């Protein structure tokens, strides 16, 4: 008797499932359009939120102890926790297949602001966001937007330009090198302006590049650095995440200069003459602050020199003349007298 009942139940569920099988993909996606009119009413009420009602989560693709890209997000999250007194949580090493469920779990756990740290979060977030109209989703470094979905992008290219200038100033061989992980558009922008900036200082300078093909292969980065050095480069800029250390070590061994990326990496190696700072923590804290005081509006936020999210560190390895030259260039850029072809 029981067996028969089970069989019936199973058959029933199969049938239901098959019925659900009929095409309805359009439905969930089409809903995003018309829903626009009703959703903002809920999310745009400019009420200040109490810190104890807010929970903020961070989802990363990589490891949060990578000393680079993901670590900067983690630092931002920790600063939100310490400075704003908000409850925070994070997930690291989340593969793309797991992202949607992780996002939903956070949303259901009552997290109101969820950061995804990287462009690859744009797509899954635009799927999940419509399901949770009360939760704000922010994909860092992604060009996405929606009712409760925002992206943040940097003005890619600014840092490359000034790093290139500084590199050209200290180079004696007339050859400088750049070590990006891959040729994604943001890296490409910085690579292009790196060359432009260098040529602005020394028109004859030669710029070489070697890709590591990975965001975290330290040994590979070191070999890339060695190979560029053997081609005569005497200033290297690692454009990556976790592998800067590998490049710095090669530079230390050969006694040449290097530049830092994302954070001020002078502390990691004395060879670092200056660093291009992309302050992810600042972006995180600023976003969380505006979320708390009710001024947050969904959309694509562009961060660069003008709002302080990108900047150059102190110029450790430059003489006073060169420092002055750099600062003048940065001022010109801020005043709109210098044009840098940035992405966004």
């Amino acid at each position, binding site marked *: 008797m029981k067996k028969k009942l089970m069989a019936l139940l199973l058959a029933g569920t199969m049938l239901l499932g098959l019925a659900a099988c009929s095409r309805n993909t359009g439905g969930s996606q089409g809903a995003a359009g018309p829903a626009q009119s009703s959703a903002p009413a809920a999310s745009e009420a400019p009420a200040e939120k109490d810190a104890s009602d807010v929970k903020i989560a961070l989802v990363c693709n990589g*490891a*949060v*102890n*990578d*000393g680079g890209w993901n*670590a900067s997000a*983690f630092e931002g999250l*920790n600063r939100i926790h310490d400075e704003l007194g908000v409850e925070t949580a994070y997930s*690291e*090493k989340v593969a793309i297949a797991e992202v949607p469920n992780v996002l939903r779990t956070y949303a259901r756990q009552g997290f109101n602001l969820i950061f995804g740290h990287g462009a690859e979060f744009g797509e899954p977030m635009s799927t999940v966001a419509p399901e949770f109209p009360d939760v704000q989703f922010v994909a860092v470094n992604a060009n996405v937007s929606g009712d409760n979905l925002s992206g943040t992008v940097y003005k890619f290219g600014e840092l490359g330009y000034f790093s290139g200038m500084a590199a050209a100033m200290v180079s004696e061989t007339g050859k400088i*090198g750049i070590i990006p992980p*891959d*040729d994604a558009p943001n890296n490409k922008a910085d690579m292009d302006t790196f060359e432009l900036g260098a040529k602005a200082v020394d028109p004859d300078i030669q710029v*070489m*590049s*070697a*890709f590591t*093909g*990975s965001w*975290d*292969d*330290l*040994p590979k980065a*070191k*070999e*890339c650095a*060695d*190979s*560029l050095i*053997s*081609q005569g*480069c005497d200033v290297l800029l690692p454009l990556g995440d*976790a592998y800067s*250390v*590998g490049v710095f*070590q090669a530079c230390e*061994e050969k006694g040449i200069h290097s530049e830092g990326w994302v954070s001020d990496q002078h502390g990691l190696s004395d060879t670092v003459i200056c660093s291009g700072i992309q302050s992810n923590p600042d972006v995180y804290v600023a976003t969380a602050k505006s979320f708390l005081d009710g001024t947050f509006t969904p959309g694509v936020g562009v961060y660069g020199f003008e709002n302080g999210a990108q900047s150059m560190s102190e110029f450790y390895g430059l003489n006073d003349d060169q420092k002055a030259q750099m600062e003048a260039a940065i001022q010109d850029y801020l005043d709109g007298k210098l044009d840098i072809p940035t992405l966004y």
Partner: protein
Amino acid sequence: MEVLKIFLTPDFWSSAIRLMTPLMLAALGGIICERAGILNMALEGQILMGAFFAYLGSYLTQNVWLGLVIAMIGSMSLAVIHAFMSINVKVNQVVVALGLNTLAIGITSTIFRFMFGTDSQMANCPGFKAIHIPGLSDIPFIGPVLFGQYPLTYIALLALFGISWFLFHTSRGLELRAAGENPQALDVAGVDVIRIRWLAVLVTGAFCGLAGACLTLNGLNTFYDNISSGRGYIAYAAIVFGKWNPMGTTLATLLFGAGDALQLRMQAMNFNIPYYFYLMMPYLITFLALVFFMGPSKGPAASNVPFVKDKARSSKRRPKQTSGIGGK
């Protein structure tokens, strides 16, 4: 033609040797195991264990040589499981190795997080310094290539000669090879096959520990999740490529190291080739060389065949994949 000039620079060759050292150590170790009749696909996991424990040991003791010892112990602990499973329990040797590789990823990245937390910014450990052998390292070209390397490279060279001599010129080496070719005959001659195989697997583990230490202690001085990134599989390919011969295997790892060094230099020369093809190059070169120049190779006859005492007649037959060798 620019490319050909690369081969004339000492820097290229020293870089090739540096890149081949971990592969060479792991592959040489692997030969011992393979020759004794244990197919070892677990090199990858053992290298990873070695890399992590080298870092951990060197960090905790602040002594790089103690770190090396701890690296060997770390990867030998994985080898113990490997030996027990494949020799005593007689599990298929390919599949047990794949399980071990997964376990190694888990152990290393979990303990790494537990020990160093998530906010430590890459605590550095003491590492090796390149040794410039006085006099010899001043010889043009050969000097920087051969005599300005890290200590582990010299150890690898010693291992090459040591293992060649041991395998082909000692009676113990003969026994070891017999364990892989015809264990039944060896058993009849009164030699303990099980013991030989156990020792071989453990020695392989020790070598993989050294190989792993190359990755973390040769100037890098830090660890990262899954730092071995497939080098164990390449080392295994090198063993087959080199036809289970130490010299041939070393040349195979040199081919791979040179391929890697070449692609890095070609990238720096700004040819208009997408860089993904450079990354592919070492693997593609190895694959093509294997297929077009080497021809198929046959390993030791009893490789991947568990040894069962008193079953002399069935030594040639491979076991069923599902159930191993039949019960008594």
